[in-house]
């Protein structure tokens, strides 16, 4: 599934998107609207027209990159790879639950989060240790991001099994060193 909302049985009226549409090679985002909303726009008097839009809405070069990016994602089966590698990453990270400071490990697709706590029982967040792990992991060659007390992982969808294992290995060694 290419879109997060497809993971559940949703009936969206409006869907925001951005980020992955160009893989970051150009700036592009957007919204999609339902046929019902489109009809309301198409039937408006000019006094009630939809007075909204940006200088760079529909930027030609950004949209050209978006088209090619979607083509690459489909051609190279990156959605399937994300699912497969995501399962491997989640399973690997779940092994880190044996560390006292790892309170929770969760994930969906190729997005995972690792919560750092002071105590597994109280679940008290440990922001200082989360930042320390983030910085120490970077020094060992792994970039993660502390989102509050959660270390976030969302690597490129082209990642392979060896690289997924590298994430788990470096994070595990980092937490082991920090304690």
């Amino acid at each position, binding site marked *: 599934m*290419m*879109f997060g909302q497809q993971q559940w049985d*949703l009936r*969206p*009226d*409006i*869907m*925001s998107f*951005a*980020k992955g549409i160009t*893989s970051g*090679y*150009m*700036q*592009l*985002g*957007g*919204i*999609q*609207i*339902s*046929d019902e*909303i*489109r009809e*309301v726009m198409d039937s408006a008097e000019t006094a*009630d027209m*939809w007075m909204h839009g940006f200088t*760079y*809405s*529909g*930027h*030609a*070069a950004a*949209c*050209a990159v978006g*088209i*090619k*990016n979607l083509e*690459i*994602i489909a051609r190279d089966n990156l959605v399937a790879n994300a699912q497969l590698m995501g399962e491997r990453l989640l399973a690997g990270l779940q092994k880190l639950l044996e560390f006292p400071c790892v309170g929770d490990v*969760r994930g*969906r697709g190729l*997005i995972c*989060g690792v919560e750092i706590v002071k105590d597994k029982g109280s*679940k008290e*967040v440990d*922001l200082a240790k989360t930042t320390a792990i983030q910085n120490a992991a*970077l020094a060992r*060659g*792994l*970039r993660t991001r502390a989102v*509050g*007390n*959660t270390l*976030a992982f*969302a*690597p*490129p969808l*082209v990642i392979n099994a060896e*690289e997924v294992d590298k994430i788990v290995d470096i994070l595990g060694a980092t937490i082991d060193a920090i304690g």
Partner: protein
Amino acid sequence: MTHATLDHATVVEMDKKQLHPVYHPSIHKDPLVVERGEGVWIYSADGRKILDGMAGLWNVNVGYGNEELPRVAYDQMRNLAYTSNFSGMTNPPSAELASILAGMAHPSLNTTFFTSGGSESNDSAFKTARYFWYRKGKKDKIKFISRRAGYHGITVAATAATGIPRYHTMFGPLAPGFIHIAHPLVYRYPGDITPGETVGQAAARARRGDSAGRPGYRRRLHCRTDSGRGRCHCATRRLLPPGPRNLRPL
């Protein structure tokens, strides 16, 4: 001179004239100067090779150093990089991309409006929702409900939708009409929760008779939103899935 020829120290010195997103000097003393990337790897100006476990900011799907994307960017820029796309004008790539996206995410979503990023997208969504109800004669239907701990962007309206107090404190007053409800993180749900159950299902079970389809459900959700002042009090930011099953009744 290309940018690649600048060494680490030179970039850091010049960078002192740049203000970075979510800035504090303590976290920018010795920034990582990323010079190039290849696949999942980024390479710094001081010679380090780093696995980017965050794909930039969750977005570099096809990985770094792709050669096809710059080629189409070059060709399109040479032809027409940009011109106005306001009503009355269009260009082939935006028309083609809208056509490709029609029906891709959901059969009901067949029209696309383009922005330059997610914050602009969410502001566009908020304005379009209000526009819809304005046109339907319901001008008072202006409220948005979002999750505590949820991040929705950083423009004025998106900031108000974001359920993370740290983004609010120093930028008040917030745009009105945004209400935050409990987040769906199972790990942090204080009540009794059974395996496989969502927070919403557990909360509904805890309030016996609080069936999702009944009119009172929405009112009760509002009751959980800190008196409707549009401020929330969650302790921290968390990475979590949206749990839409709880949202459908709204």
